[in-house]
C-alpha cells in the first residue's frame, strides 16, 4: 500500500452561469424601473401627490410632486436593479429586490395620486382587511402542504365557513357561535379531503377541485332554499365587534389599523407567529416537516404519518373556516352565492408565492391585499388603469414565481403523494 497514491482529484463544482438569478432579476428591475421613470414620469401631471395620515383628505400628509416622484422612484428601482445586476451586495439581494419593487410601486402611486390624495390609514386598513382571509387561507394551506397534503380546496373551505358562520350566527344570534360554526364548516370540507386523499388515496388535487364544486353547490342550494326566502331567520348574522386598545391605538397609521380592530385581525397575526415557531421549533413542527418531506423515514422512526396528516389537514380546516367567517361576519352582513369569488385561489397563490412558509405567505397575502385595495382606490379616483388588471396581479405574480423567474419555489418533497406502507 505504501507505493499507492490516492488520486487527488479536486472537488469539481460547475462554474456559475452568467445569468444567475440576481442578474436576471436585476435586469428586470432595471427595465421596469426605467420604464416607470420614463412612462409614469411623462404621464404624471406636475401636481402634488398627497398621502394623508388619516382616513380622508384631512390632517398631516406626506406630499411630493407627482412627476418628480414618479421619475425619482422609477430611477431608484432601476438603481436597485443595477446593484443586483452588478453582483454587488449578494447577501442583500432579497432586500434589494423588495426595495426595487417598492420603489416601482411608489413611482406608480406618484403618477396616479398626483393632483389627488391617498388616505394612508384607509389604504393600510383596507389592505389588511382584504388580506385577512388570504392570510388565514394560506396558513391553512401551509398546515396541509407541509405535511404532504395538497389543499386546493381552500375556496370550498372559505365558502363553507362563510355559510356556516352566517347560518348559525343568525340562528343563535351570536357572532361567536357563528365563528365556531365557520370553523366547523371548514373542518367538514377538510375532513372529506383528508379521508379521501389519506385513506382512499384519491388524487389530492382532484379531490380538492371536486370539493370546491361540492361546496359551491351545497352552499348555493341551501342559500336558495333557506336564506333567500327567509333572510331574517337564516341570513342576518351579528357582526364582529371592533375592539380598541387604548394607548396603542393612538400610534399614527399602525395604531388605528392594528389596535382598533376585530378579533380576526389578531387571530390571523397570532396564527402567523404561532405556526411559524410551531413548524420550526417544536416537536410537532419537526415531525410535520419530516412527514411532508420523507414520510417513509418518519414512519421508520415510529411517527404515525397518516395520523399527523389528518391532524394537520383538520387544523387547516379550522383556520380556513375562520378565514371564511371574514366574508359574512366582518366584510358583509350576509351570505350570498359564491361570495368568495376565487379568494381561496388567491390564498393558494399567496401560499405558493410565500414559498410554503407562514411568514412568506403572510407577506404575499399582504401584497395581494394591497393590489386589491389599490384596484378599488384607482376605481374611486377614476384612474385610466383598469381595475381588472390590478386584480390580475396576484395570479400573474404567482405565475411568474412558479415559472422560476424569481428563483425556484420548492414544495415539500412528498407534497401531494399519498403515503402507502411497504
Amino acid at each position, binding site marked *: *500500500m505504501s*507505493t*499507492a*497514491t*490516492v*488520486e487527488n*482529484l479536486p472537488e*469539481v*463544482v*460547475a462554474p456559475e452561469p452568467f445569468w444567475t438569478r440576481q442578474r436576471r432579476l436585476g435586469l428586470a428591475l432595471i427595465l421596469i424601473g426605467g420604464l416607470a421613470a420614463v412612462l409614469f414620469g411623462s404621464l404624471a401631471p406636475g401636481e402634488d401627490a398627497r398621502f394623508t395620515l388619516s382616513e380622508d383628505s384631512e390632517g398631516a400628509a406626506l406630499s411630493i410632486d407627482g412627476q418628480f416622484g414618479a421619475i425619482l422612484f422609477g430611477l431608484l428601482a432601476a438603481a436597485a436593479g443595477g446593484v443586483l445586476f452588478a453582483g454587488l451586495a449578494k447577501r442583500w439581494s432579497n432586500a434589494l429586490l423588495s426595495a426595487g419593487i417598492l420603489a416601482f410601486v411608489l413611482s406608480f402611486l406618484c403618477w396616479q395620486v398626483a393632483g389627488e390624495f391617498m388616505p394612508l390609514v384607509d389604504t393600510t386598513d383596507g389592505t389588511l382587511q382584504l388580506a385577512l382571509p388570504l392570510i388565514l387561507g394560506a396558513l391553512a394551506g401551509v398546515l396541509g402542504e407541509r405535511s404532504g397534503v395538497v389543499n386546493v380546496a381552500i375556496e370550498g373551505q372559505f365558502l363553507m365557513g362563510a355559510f356556516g358562520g352566517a347560518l348559525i350566527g343568525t340562528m343563535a344570534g351570536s357572532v361567536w357561535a357563528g365563528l365556531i360554526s365557520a370553523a366547523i364548516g371548514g373542518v367538514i370540507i377538510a375532513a372529506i379531503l383528508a379521508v379521501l386523499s389519506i385513506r382512499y388515496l384519491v388524487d389530492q388535487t382532484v379531490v380538492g377541485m371536486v370539493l370546491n364544486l361540492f361546496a359551491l353547490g351545497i352552499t348555493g342550494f341551501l342559500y336558495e332554499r333557506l336564506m333567500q326566502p327567509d333572510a331574517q331567520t337564516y341570513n342576518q348574522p351579528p357582526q364582529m365587534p371592533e375592539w380598541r386598545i387604548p394607548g396603542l391605538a393612538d400610534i399614527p397609521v399602525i395604531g388605528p389599523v392594528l389596535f382598533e380592530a376585530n378579533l380576526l385581525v389578531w387571530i390571523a397575526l397570532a396564527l402567523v407567529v404561532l405556526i411559524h415557531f410551531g413548524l420550526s*421549533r*417544536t*416537536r*410537532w*413542527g*419537526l*415531525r410535520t*416537516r*419530516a412527514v411532508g*418531506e*420523507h414520510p*417513509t*423515514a*418518519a*414512519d*421508520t*422512526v*415510529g*411517527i*404515525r404519518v397518516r395520523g399527523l396528516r389528518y391532524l394537520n389537514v383538520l387544523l387547516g380546516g379550522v383556520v380556513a373556516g375562520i378565514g371564511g367567517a371574514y366574508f359574512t361576519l366582518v366584510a358583509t352582513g350576509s351570505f350570498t352565492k359564491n361570495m368568495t369569488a376565487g379568494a381561496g385561489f388567491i390564498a393558494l397563490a399567496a401560499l405558493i408565492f410565500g414559498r410554503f412558509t407562514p411568514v412568506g405567505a403572510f407577506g404575499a397575502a399582504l401584497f395581494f391585499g394591497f393590489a386589491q385595495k389599490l384596484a378599488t382606490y384607482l376605481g374611486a379616483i377614476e384612474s385610466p388603469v383598469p381595475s381588472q388588471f390590478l386584480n390580475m396581479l396576484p395570479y400573474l405574480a404567482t405565475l411568474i414565481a412558479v415559472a422560476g423567474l424569481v428563483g425556484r419555489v420548492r414544495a415539500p*418533497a412528498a407534497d401531494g403523494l399519498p403515503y402507502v*406502507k*411497504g
Partner: protein
Amino acid sequence: MANDHIDITVEPGEVHALLGENGAGKSTLMNQLYGLLQPDEGQIVVNDEPRVFKSPRDAISAGIGMVHQHFMLVPVFTVAENIALGAEEVRGGPLGWLDRRRSRQDVIETSRKYGLPVDPDALVEDLPVGAQQRVEIVKALTREVDLLILDEPTAVLTPQETEELLAVMRSLTAMGKSIVFITHKLKEVKAIADRITVVRRGKIVGTASPDTSEDELAALMVGRAVSLEVQKTPAEPGRTVLKVTGLVADDDRGIRAVDGVDLEVRAGEVLGIAGVQGNGQTELVEAVMGLREVRAGTIRLEDDDLVGMSTKKVLRSGVGYIPEDRSHDGVVKEFSVAENLVLDMYDHAPYGNAFSIDLSRVGANAQERIEQFDIRCQSSSTPVGTLSGGNQQKVVVAREMSRPLRLFIASQPTRGVDVGSIEFIHSRIIHERDQGTAVLVVSSELDEVVGLADRIAVMYRGRILAIVSPDTPREEIGLLMAGITGDTPEGEK
C-alpha cells in the same frame, strides 16, 4: 407470498447473515421484524418475551434498530434533526419545544462512544453516501438498540468503505450488540458472519457456517449449481465503433460528474466499465444516449457525431440501450408488453409512421419476441407492471436487440433480476458481441464486469483511471475503484 413460515434466531453479540438473491424475501422478513409490515402468522420473541410490533415504535422500544437499503433520512434536515426525529428531546411540556442543544449533545456522545464520526450540523443532502450510512447507524444506536438490522449496507460503498463498515460491525458485536446482515454478496458474508441463513423464494433453504465455500453458498441461494462464469470465446475486435474523447457532463444538480473521459469500443468486443455507483457512469452513458447535455468533448459513432443528437436519432442510428433503472426508465408499467416492445420504434416502419400506428404489426412483433426471448407473460396485452423483474428486463432486452445494431449499451443489465434471467441476459449480450456489435457494459457488480468484459475501464470521480484486462487481480481493480492507482500499469490496452 414473500415469506413462508420462516424461523430465525439471533444470539447476543453475533453477526447473523441473511443471504439470498434479489426478491428472495429478505427485506420483507426484516420489515416485519422492524414493525413496518405485519406478519399474517408467527411470532417474535425478544429476550424470551413474545412481542407484537404494530409499528417501528414498538420494535425500537424492544431494542431493535434497522438501517434500510434506501436511507431513511430527510435530505433537508440536519444530521442532528434526523437523529432526533421520533425521539425528540423537548422542553416546555405539552408545547413540545425542541431542545436542540441536547439533541446535538446526544449525537456527539453516541458518535464518540462507537467511533462513528458524524457532524451534527451538516445537512444530510450534502453528505456522501458513506457518511449518510454512519448517520443511520448512529440514529439506531442513540435509541440504544441491542439488535441492528443492516439491509444491503454495502451496495453503495467502495471496497474500502465496505472494509470500514465491517470493522464497525465487529466493534459493535464486541460491545454486545447483535447484527442481522442482509446481503447477496458472498465474499462479505464469509468475511464477517458468525452464522448464515440462506433464503430462497420466501423460505429458509439452509443454514451454513462461514467456512462454506462460495460455490456451495451460491448453489444454496439459487437452488441449483450455477456457473458464476460467463461462457464465451475470446473476442475478435474489429473497427472502432464508438469513440469518446474529452467528454464532460454534469449531474442533475449541476455538479460535474463526467470529467474528461476518453474511451473506444470496437466492433465485436465488450468494454466493461467498473466503478462504485455514483462515479459518473450513469451520466457518461446518458450523455452518449443524448439524454444529458454534453458540456465538452466529442462522441462519434463511426462517422456520425452524436453530440447534440436527440435520443430518438441516436437510437435510430443503430444504438441499443438498456437503462440502469428498469422501472424508472426502461418500461412503462401501465403499457402492455406489446406496446413496451415498440416503445422506441412505434412511429417507425413497420410498426407505424409519424401519424399512426399499425396495431396488428405491433401485436405480431410481440408474439415473435415473446417466444424468442422467453418472456413469461399471460399475453402480449398484459401490462408489463404485472410481470416479474426478470421478465420486465427481458422485455427491455428484447426491444433493444430486435433491430440491427452497431452499438449496444447495457447499464446494470441484471440488477434486481433472478439468476435464471441473469444467465439468459448475459448469453444474449455475448451473442450480440459475437455478431459484431460493439458492446458497452456498465455495472457496479465487479463480478459481472469481469465475467462479461474483454477490457475493463475503471471509473472514479468522473474519470477513467485505467483500462485493464479482466485477468487483473480483483484487489487491484478494487483499489482502482477506490481511486487508488499505484504501480498499476496505466493505459494498458
